[in-house]
């Protein structure tokens, strides 16, 4: 039984993390070997000294600051913001489809009537729908 292999075990021995067989090995060795016995004692001494370290308590203000940290509200608002911006993005994608007035006018001629027709130099056709004038077709000369 050499000291080097026991040294590794001494630390685990004081932490009560050894198997029964290893505990016996350490105890048997320590009885005979003064050097390893001293190591054990100094490790135990270190342990108790670390336990004596006075660790301050965190001050009340940390708790207050954490409690004041904006929580759910922020995240709910953020969710709403994300939802809204998604709607806007999707909306702009669908607007051209919805706004194709000419198509709608052709499909439902009764909803529209021609209010203005210019023949020179180009022909433009305007429709009125719910009070809005909409240019729906254009043909003729170049600009």
């Amino acid at each position, binding site marked *: 039984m050499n000291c080097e292999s026991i040294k590794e075990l001494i630390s685990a021995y004081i932490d009560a993390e050894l198997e029964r067989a290893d505990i016996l090995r350490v105890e048997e060795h320590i009885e005979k070997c003064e050097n390893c016995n001293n190591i054990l004692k100094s490790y135990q001494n*270190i342990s108790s000294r670390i336990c004596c370290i006075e660790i301050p308590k965190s001050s009340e203000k940390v708790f207050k600051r954490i409690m004041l940290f904006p929580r759910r509200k922020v995240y709910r608002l953020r969710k709403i913001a994300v939802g809204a911006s998604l709607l806007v993005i999707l909306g702009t994608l669908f607007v051209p489809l919805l706004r194709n007035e000419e198509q709608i006018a052709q499909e439902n001629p009764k909803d529209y009537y021609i209010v203005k027709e210019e023949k020179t130099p180009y022909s433009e056709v305007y429709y009125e729908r719910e009070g809005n004038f909409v240019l729906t077709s254009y043909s003729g000369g170049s600009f």
Partner: protein
Amino acid sequence: MNIEKVFLDYNDYIFKYIYGMVQNRAEAEDLLQDTFIKVMKAGNKDIKNWKGYLLTIARNTVYDHWRKRKNKINLDFFKLKTKNNDIELKLDIEKGIKKLSPKLKEVIILREINRLEYQEIADILGIEKGTVKSRLSRAREELKNFLEGNT
């Protein structure tokens, strides 16, 4: 999850770890705050092992803090305050812990201050139980050498 309850139940325990790692009260308080804000942001409800979960987050917070500080080391040069840190460390053993490398420091703190078992430490650090055992052995050896050299 009620963060208030979690904080009241565990803040002492987590503060011990953080304080042990940075050994400065003001710094440790800031890091404690960051840790709990991270926990709030993550908003995980089904935590079975709060101790382990909080320690893991506290550990990441401490390491992030060190990484950031390393990046602005030139700024620290102008801060005379950092020189006074050692005043807080009254005992030799505290100075000895401060001298340990982060790897050895954290095993000794998790073991001696947070009173965790080897397996729990291994889980938090993501290492083998055997590695915890050997790191602790090395940490104690270095502390022993430091204390003997000091007296």
